[in-house]
């Protein structure tokens, strides 16, 4: 079956504009995660969804960042009033279960490379 897909693959925007990044998880995966990876850095956790709810938003760096998930499937990460420090690769991952499924591997998408000029 299809893996995790993300769109767009690349996004170049001007400082101050809003951007939306999309993630399509693997069908049937109830858990969905967003991470951010800056050049030469590890992955920084942003937010975790179990179904349509987000029990852990602790990684969102500011109130300019928000995310939603609808129908237990597609998720959108929105960054308002983008800043240059938001430039990074945004990765989405999904896994089979959420709470109680502590040992599940995460399946990652290819990421969206965001460049804020």
């Amino acid at each position: 079956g299809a893996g995790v897909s993300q769109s767009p693959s690349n996004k170049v925007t001007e400082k101050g504009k809003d951007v939306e990044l999309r993630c399509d998880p693997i069908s049937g995966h109830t858990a969905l995660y967003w991470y951010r990876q800056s050049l030469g850095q590890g992955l920084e956790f942003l937010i975790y969804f179990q179904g349509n709810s987000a029990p852990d938003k602790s990684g969102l760096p500011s109130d300019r960042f928000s995310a939603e998930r609808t129908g237990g499937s597609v998720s959108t990460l929105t960054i308002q009033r983008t800043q240059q420090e938001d430039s990074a690769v945004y990765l989405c991952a999904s896994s089979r279960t959420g709470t109680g499924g502590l040992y599940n591997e995460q399946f990652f998408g290819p990421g969206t490379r965001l460049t804020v000029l």
Partner: protein
Amino acid sequence: SQKIEQNSEALNIQEGKTATLTCNYTNYSPAYLQWYRQDPGRGPVFLLLIRENEKEKRKERLKVTFDTTLKQSLFHITASQPADSATYLCAFSGGYNKLIFGAGTRLAVHP
């Protein structure tokens, strides 16, 4: 705060040798550790998971150890091949399914 460290310097080895990568963590006692491989321009790919009550886990040419006393995991690739060249990330559980990742170690296997 929870911290996970991997050797930031690239590891260069000769084909056929065993590559050993190190992951150290502090201020936490994770229930498990995961290792991922990441190729340039791609998302990480899961390789192995080891639980806190397991000392060692193997999969084909890969071996992972987990020492909760030393707060360290070692990742070994035996009989390394140029195709093993990639960045290897370790991650541990940080609550729910949240993973805390190290910055990764780049491995280069030379023919």
